[in-house]
């Protein structure tokens, strides 16, 4: 189920910034590529970006559900949701469907109020992992892990973080048939979010 459409994403922490990189391929049943600009990364508020790796339809359904829940939280609480609360909510939403799950493995990139990065990922039934350095998800999970472990160093500034994320993602997806075909990187800093689309191999 997770390999029907294909995906690859990384979230990495820097010094007072956090970045998320994702591929853009929409594949179909491991047989062909339908589009190279499929959106899998969604900025939900100024300080939270979620990347949804997995089955395309559930990526879109879950994105709508998350947008709804964020808006509802904002109306009720009259404040923005923190990344930690968001991650907990997402895990709970996924577990609600324990016996008929969304086939999506999310990664969360957030910046806390104090500017410190927050990273988490979970499996498709909501088992969370938080990390200090990076998390990865996707069809080339192992490749991504290897690249990140090699190239990561702590306390990177946003330019170094961008470079590292780009190199890690592109090297990993080049060794996976189901992901790649375009890449985008978003860096959240206290000043704002910077998005760049990478020129990558289209194969």
């Amino acid at each position, binding site marked *: 189920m997770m390999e029907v459409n294909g995906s690859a994403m990384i979230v990495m922490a820097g010094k007072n910034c956090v970045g998320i990189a994702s591929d853009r391929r929409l594949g179909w049943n491991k047989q062909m590529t339908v*589009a190279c600009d499929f959106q899998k990364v969604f900025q939900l508020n100024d300080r939270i970006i979620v990347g949804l790796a997995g089955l*395309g339809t559930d990526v*879109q359904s879950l994105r709508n559900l998350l947008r709804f829940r964020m808006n509802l939280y904002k109306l009720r609480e009259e404040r923005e949701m923190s990344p930690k609360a968001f991650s907990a909510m997402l895990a709970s939403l996924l577990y609600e469907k324990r016996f008929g799950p969304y086939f999506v493995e999310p990664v969360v990139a957030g910046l806390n109020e104090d500017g410190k990065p927050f990273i988490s990922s979970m499996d498709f039934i909501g088992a969370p992992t938080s990390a200090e350095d990076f998390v990865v998800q996707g069809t080339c999970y192992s490749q991504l892990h290897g690249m990140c472990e090699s190239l990561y160093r702590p306390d990177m500034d946003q330019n170094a973080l961008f470079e590292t994320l780009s190199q890690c993602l592109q090297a990993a997806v080049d060794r996976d048939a189901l992901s790649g075909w375009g890449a985008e990187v978003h860096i959240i800093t206290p000043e704002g979010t910077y998005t760049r689309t990478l020129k990558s191999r289209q194969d």
Partner: protein
Amino acid sequence: MDSSIGIQGKDFVILAADGSASQGGFLMYRKDVDKILPMSEKQILATVGSASDREVFSEYIQKNLRLYELENQIHMSTFGLANFIRKELAIALRRAPYQTNLLLGGTDDSEGPALFWIDYLATLQKVKFGAHGYGAFFVLSILDKEWKEDLTEEEALDVLRKCIAEIHTRLALAAPEWTVKVVDSNGIRVVEL
């Protein structure tokens, strides 16, 4: 298995779908089925897949769109319609899935032409060209090569002829007849290739 093709041009969208109604991979009931239904004055939906799901789903969307227009006194945009279709498919997916793949083409006065690829799992993507079915394996590469920005209708129909010719050459059990419709600012037209 039936195929469909969609191409977005400068200010129009062309949808083509084969005319077959078949069973068991070898029996052809009919070869002249029109699988491209008008949703509104300037939106058309090509559905391929299981025959009953195809007809039921496209009529369901057509009638609900009309209801929306009557209730809200406003024309729904192509993007809105695409998302409405996706939502209906996504809800049905975990109850009683529709086994239909869709291409939605339409023009809006403000937005211009738009083509949406929607598969039976309710994955939605806006595309410049798209295809469903076994035919997709052959035509996507042709479209990658031949499609360019601001195609005129003649150019787009030429590309479409190449695509259909390739399907006839290489797809075993390819349907002989295709329905082709164009939607532009003047409305919906049937085109003879």
